[in-house]
């Protein structure tokens, strides 16, 4: 055993196991005789075709050279012209904005967990961006004094790391330099992955943590012969850490957790099956994984969330999504350290908030319900943002209570009217169908200057209240029961269409009363009443954590396709069916995968399935093949199955999602698909090689490999303008950069 054994990076998941040593000795002698061409098989000299190892050997220097050139190429492709376009592209408007929020420490609401945006904020801060830019909408030009490039470079660096990670994963799985190179190239030269890596988005961060988790896991797995060694622990801990990071960027991180989870279960299952393992050892194995892959990630996730809440301590755009108590912890919020009247009296001006988590303010505005939707009266909605249209004055029935009147508190069981301050109309309900939830009654604003009719009367019933109890801000929940129809004012979970400004529907529910019909007074403006401090309502961290998650969950469920949004269907993604525009106008960037690679993936998947069935039937029907070939095949097939599993876990769940989907959701799955394809290509090439006589086998092999590599390069050369931006006429024009490349009508360039 000479230096040759060190050449290979640490012993991997080689199926050959006990035969490995013998192999190495053999290749050693052979390698010395064919020093000049280490990457060839050298079987001519050996003469014993079936006995030669089927992987091409490679020495350490070459390995690092190949690896290094891939990394350099990754840097070049990812960072080339990264400052262009000098305007906001697509979702940069969200994530740049959110990065700014972290820098400014203002509170906001988003459906994704915080890590990705915190990293964007951090990278901006470190590269001299001070959070002053508004990131208002896509297409807006960056002012010259705003350093947005720093954040783009940060994302691009994570994008760069995808190539070595992909290379490393395939290397660990197969120890085949050819497969690893192809995997690297598939990721390097895919235009879609490239484009996603170049902007201020969560996707590069997400993809980085997904591949990092996968890499750490296969690395960890490669040490399974030396369990509980320091390296073993190191990689196990790193796996847990990257998993935690993955899910802290987007909940899609769950899929890689599932991949690692299933693999771990399988691993434990195999350990259990080995009767040499004592029960104590098994328990140790189990506990080690439970601690590092379950408990550690949970703790990290909570810590990251804690940091998020710690940073965002000033009032901002997200306040309204949270409960009144939550808001009182935000600096600058009306409720923060505020003292305001605690009780509500007739004549007080109040805001009323729905008590379900994520509930919104009772709202009205100068717009009527459109023709055909109930009575054509003024709309009443629920609105999450703070606004003067959320203000109401509490009045007695038939009396226009004024602020000058002597104080009389609103109590449980009182019948009140609520007058909308801005429009001086009263909250009203009547026997018309509500706009969306048609079995409820419509709620409107009606009347003028506070005068109204019997249908403006609502009874205040404090939840669990006793007669005479006073309605208190924030603390007491109550229902507003319409006396005329015996129904309760309710915020439903549905969004009104355009005419209702996408605000939430408010109805009067004649059926069972639940939390959707509970309201609480949030703000009280009344000079007559004594003020009290709100500090004692503040929730603790755990309460905040739970509330944030419920609000996020609701937000995610609410991401239904809107009327005027381009959505895409999961079936379109692997086909590279249509792109997603990142930037239009003079400088066009279109998120579209490299079609050669995408379609190649599909073909290879079909090829693999056929090979798999063919070989399965073959071995069932008892064709004998040399042990070595069988070992080789089973090692490749298990790598393929694992990678295709990763692909499926990151792709198939989208079929079941009702929320709005975009093409960029596919790219984590694409990475797995790319690695899978690399292994299949390598396997296929080896199979082809074995079919030919030994004289021409290597020529065929190298020719085929050359054609494939050239194809990958050339396709990237053709489609790279998608990523680096095109201008001028569209592809149908003879003078266009991409003339003749519009192979599908659905491609929009």
């Amino acid at each position, binding site marked *: 055993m000479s230096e040759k054994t060190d050449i290979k990076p640490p012993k991997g998941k080689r199926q050959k196991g006990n035969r490995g040593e013998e192999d190495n000795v053999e290749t050693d002698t052979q390698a010395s005789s064919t020093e000049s061409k280490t990457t060839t098989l050298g079987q001519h000299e050996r003469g014993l075709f079936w006995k030669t190892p089927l992987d091409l050997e490679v020495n350490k220097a070459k390995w690092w050279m190949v690896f290094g050139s891939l990394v350099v190429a990754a840097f070049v492709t990812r960072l080339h012209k990264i400052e262009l376009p000098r305007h906001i592209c697509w979702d940069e408007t969200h994530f740049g904005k959110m990065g700014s929020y972290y820098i400014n420490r203002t509170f906001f609401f988003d459906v994704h967990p915080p890590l990705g945006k915190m990293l964007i904020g951090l990278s901006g801060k470190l590269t001299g961006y001070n959070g002053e830019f508004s990131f208002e909408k896509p297409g807006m030009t960056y002012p010259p004094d705003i350093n947005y490039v720093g954040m783009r470079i940060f994302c691009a660096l994570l994008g760069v790391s995808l190539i070595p990670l992909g290379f490393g994963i395939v290397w660990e799985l197969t120890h085949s330099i050819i497969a690893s190179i192809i995997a690297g190239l598939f990721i390097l030269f895919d235009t879609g992955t490239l484009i996603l890596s170049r902007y201020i988005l969560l996707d590069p961060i997400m993809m980085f943590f997904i591949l990092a988790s996968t890499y750490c896991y296969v690395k960890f797995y490669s040490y399974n012969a030396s369990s509980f060694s320091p390296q073993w622990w190191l990689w196990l801990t790193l796996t847990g850490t990257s998993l935690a990071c993955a899910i802290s960027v987007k909940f899609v991180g769950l899929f890689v957790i599932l991949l690692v989870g299933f693999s771990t279960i399988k691993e434990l*299952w195999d350990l*259990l*099956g080995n*009767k040499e393992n004592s029960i104590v050892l098994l328990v140790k194995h189990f506990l080690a994984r439970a601690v590092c892959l379950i408990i550690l990630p949970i703790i990290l996730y909570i810590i990251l969330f804690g940091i998020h809440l710690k940073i965002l301590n000033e009032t901002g755009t997200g306040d309204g999504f949270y409960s009144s108590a939550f808001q009182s912890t935000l600096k600058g919020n009306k409720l923060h350290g505020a003292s305001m009247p605690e009780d509500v009296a007739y004549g007080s001006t109040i805001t009323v908030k729905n008590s379900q988590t994520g509930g919104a303010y009772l709202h009205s505005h100068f717009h009527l319900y*459109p023709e055909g939707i109930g009575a054509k009266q003024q709309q009443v909605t629920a609105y999450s943002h703070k606004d003067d249209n959320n203000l109401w004055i509490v009045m007695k029935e038939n009396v226009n209570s004024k602020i000058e009147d002597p104080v009389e508190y609103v109590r449980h069981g009182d019948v009140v009217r609520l007058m909308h301050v801005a429009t001086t109309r009263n909250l009203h309900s009547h026997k018309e169908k509500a706009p969306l*939830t*048609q*079995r409820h009654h419509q709620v409107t604003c009606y009347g003028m200057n506070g005068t109204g009719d019997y249908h403006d009367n609502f009874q205040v019933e404090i939840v669990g209240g006793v007669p005479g109890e006073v309605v208190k801000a924030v603390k007491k929940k109550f229902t507003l029961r319409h006396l005329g129809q015996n129904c309760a004012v309710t915020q*439903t*979970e*549905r969004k009104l*269409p*355009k*005419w209702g400004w996408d605000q939430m529907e408010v109805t009067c529910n004649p*059926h*069972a009363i639940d939390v959707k019909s509970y309201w609480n007074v949030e703000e009280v403006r009344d000079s007559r009443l004594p003020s009290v401090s709100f500090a004692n309502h503040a929730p603790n961290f755990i309460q905040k954590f739970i509330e944030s998650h419920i609000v996020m969950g609701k937000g995610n469920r609410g991401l239904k396709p809107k*009327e*005027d949004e381009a959505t895409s269907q999961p079936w379109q993604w692997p086909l590279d069916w249509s792109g997603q*525009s990142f930037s*239009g106008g003079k400088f066009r960037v279109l998120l579209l995968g490299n079609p050669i690679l995408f379609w190649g993936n599909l073909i290879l998947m079909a090829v693999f399935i056929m090979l798999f069935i063919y070989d*399965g*039937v073959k071995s*069932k*029907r*008892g064709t004998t093949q040399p042990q070595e070939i069988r070992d080789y095949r089973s090692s490749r097939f298990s790598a393929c199955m694992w990678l295709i599993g990763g692909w499926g876990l990151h792709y198939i769940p989208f*079929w*079941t999602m*009702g929320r709005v989907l975009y093409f960029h959701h596919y790219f984590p799955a694409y990475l797995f698909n790319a690695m899978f394809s690399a292994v299949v290509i390598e396997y296929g090439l080896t199979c082809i090689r074995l079919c030919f006589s030994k004289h021409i086998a290597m020529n065929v092999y190298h020719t085929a490999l050359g054609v494939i590599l050239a194809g990958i390069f050339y396709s990237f050369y053709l489609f790279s303008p998608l990523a680096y931006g095109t201008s001028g006429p*569209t592809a*149908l024009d003879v003078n266009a950069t991409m003339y003749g490349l519009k192979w599908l*009508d*659905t491609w*929009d360039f």
Partner: protein
Amino acid sequence: MEKKTEKLSSEDSKCQKEKGLQSTHSKTVLAHGCVQTTLFAITLVLREREIEKPNEIVFDELFFGKYAGFYIKNTFFYDLNPPLGKMLFALVGYLCGYTGDFVYENIGKEYDANVPVWQMRLIPAICGSLVVPLAYQVFIEMGLRQGTAVLASFIIICDNSLHTQSRFMLMESMMQMFNLLSLIGYLKFRKLKNRPFSPAWFTCLAVMGLSWGCSLSIKYGGFFTGLLILVLVVRDFWELLDDKTIPDFTMWLHFLSRLVMVVVLPVLFYVGLFYIHFALLTKSGVYDGNMSSKFQASLEGGLAAITRGQPQHIAYGSQITIRHSYGKPCWLHSHAFNYPKYYEGKRGSSQQQQVTCYNFKDPNNWWVVKHPDKDDLNVDEPPVHVKHGDIVQLLHGKTGRYLNSHDVGAPVSNHHQEVSCYIDFNFTNGRVPPQNWWKVDIINRDSEGDTWKIITSQVRFIHLNTSQVLKTSGKILPEWGFSQNEVVTDTNIGQETAMWNAEEHRYTKSGETAEKASNKGNLIPTQPTQLSFWEKFKELQVKMLYTRHDADLDHRYGSTPLDWPLMYKNVAYWAASNVKRQIHLLGNPLLYCTGTLALLTYCAVLLFYLLRRQRDIRDLPEAMWQQFVLVGELLLGGFLVNFVPYFMQDRTMFLHHYLPGVLFKFMVLAAVIDHVYSVLNYITQHNRLANQVSKFTFVAAVLVWCSAVYHQFDKYRVLNQGTTILTPDHLQKLQWRESWDFVYSL
């Protein structure tokens, strides 16, 4: 045998006996037959009792009864469910003299004398009763005890949800019957593996495949059970490949016969049903609007009635309405209102006249096809037909303005180009030139020819200045556009949303009479046009499978899959106008809960065995283990394939979606009880006394449980039949869960 006769005599006390059969030895086929017949008879008597009451429309009878009527009247209708179930109702209705004239308006409407309510409701009742002996047969085929088979039958009989569902014109009981039949086919087929290619072997395969086809043709939910069986067949075949004594040729025969019987046969059956479907439904009806003009024209009295006597070829000077060919019907429309000066978000518009796609017929849908070089709107003599590639202008009939497009963002989808009717505004910064030439691009010119024909030619309008295509964006205009559909142009030519066809047509006449106008060209046939079966099939199938259920997600009785296993939500099927009598779909709470418990028990025990086996500890004798696994594969598998897919659906669901699964759940329940009994027997096999005592105790416990089940069944039955008068107090007592929603007042 004597136990069975006792059962016949007294229905109410049967629960004590069901359990009593302890024989573990297989009985003769005849004996099984007798038991099954008896079970069938008992169930039928139970299910059929007062089935004709209420003589009013109950729940989805509103749809299924209505569709059955349409079959009898040969009137086309459109439904998302496949046809077999409705055809059966129609067949029975037809045989009993139903004329299909009854109007289905709302639940609770009284049937008139012409509707054979009893006979039509009898089909589900018979199918629901056949489920019981079939389940029995499944247990026998799986090699479980006869006592267990009877127990399973008893459980199925005593479930309120299955009872309710079998009593009205609903689909589930038929589907369940075919599911079980398919399962039996599979089990028998497995047993015949030593006699391949025998007639019995083929029969079993055919039963398996055909039952799948039937089940699938009743409701698409039937697909799942068949899928499970298909997977099992493939797995068995995979194992068969190991048998090297079978030559490769025979192996191919094995493969092909399975393929033909289990895949091709059901598909043929399904397609054949649609053939009958179209053969029956030849007349136009109120549902036509869902289909394309071409489809409608193939129906008697459909579009043909409107377009009768119209010239077939469109010429310069033709007046036409232009219909959007795909999706929800709408017609190219304009009206004397302009686009608002500014849209939301301060974006400006051209302020020209609105062009929309309107969902209803309207005089404003009429357009005149004009030759760009001629000012005359009259049709020449002879008419000059418009051909593929010709340039036309489209003049809006009512307002006399030309269809126009230009580089201004469309009102809602601002990345597309606006379409308007051109008004020659003279703005301070100059006037905008009209861009109103359109190229007619006939898409299906290979089959329909180069000249533009009404209805059959599918046309694109390509805007000459920008090469963009006229299409609907799928978005709705705001209030100022009267919530009509937005029309825009787009660069992407080949979209379905860009296909149009001319529908109504007349030649512009200058003072001539109508007859003369129609004498000018070939008239379109007054007979329905011929559309091939495959074209019809494809169109309907695509519509059925891809139509999103636009259902009310917040339905009062809607529930989620998680509500089902423990019976959290009922479904009200019917209530008399005075609320005194009601029908609800609700399961036997005791059965639902113990069933769920049994499922969990099975999984836990399976995990336990598997973990132990992985350490090479065999707790069970091999035969018992095999049987345990078989229960998991077939029954637990059957439950899962009928339950899990509902978690992935984003639409309103009801308790009745759980019923195919619940049948398997009950069978698992019986099988788990059987397994516990076997384990008790096995553990105590060396101690006679302990053996006897434990067995006796267990059987006694099961008997007690059975009587409780029967008691519950009887208690809730008043809510299934709608024949008992219920006071609010009584209802209150039956309200087992807070979340059950009974009707206390209307």
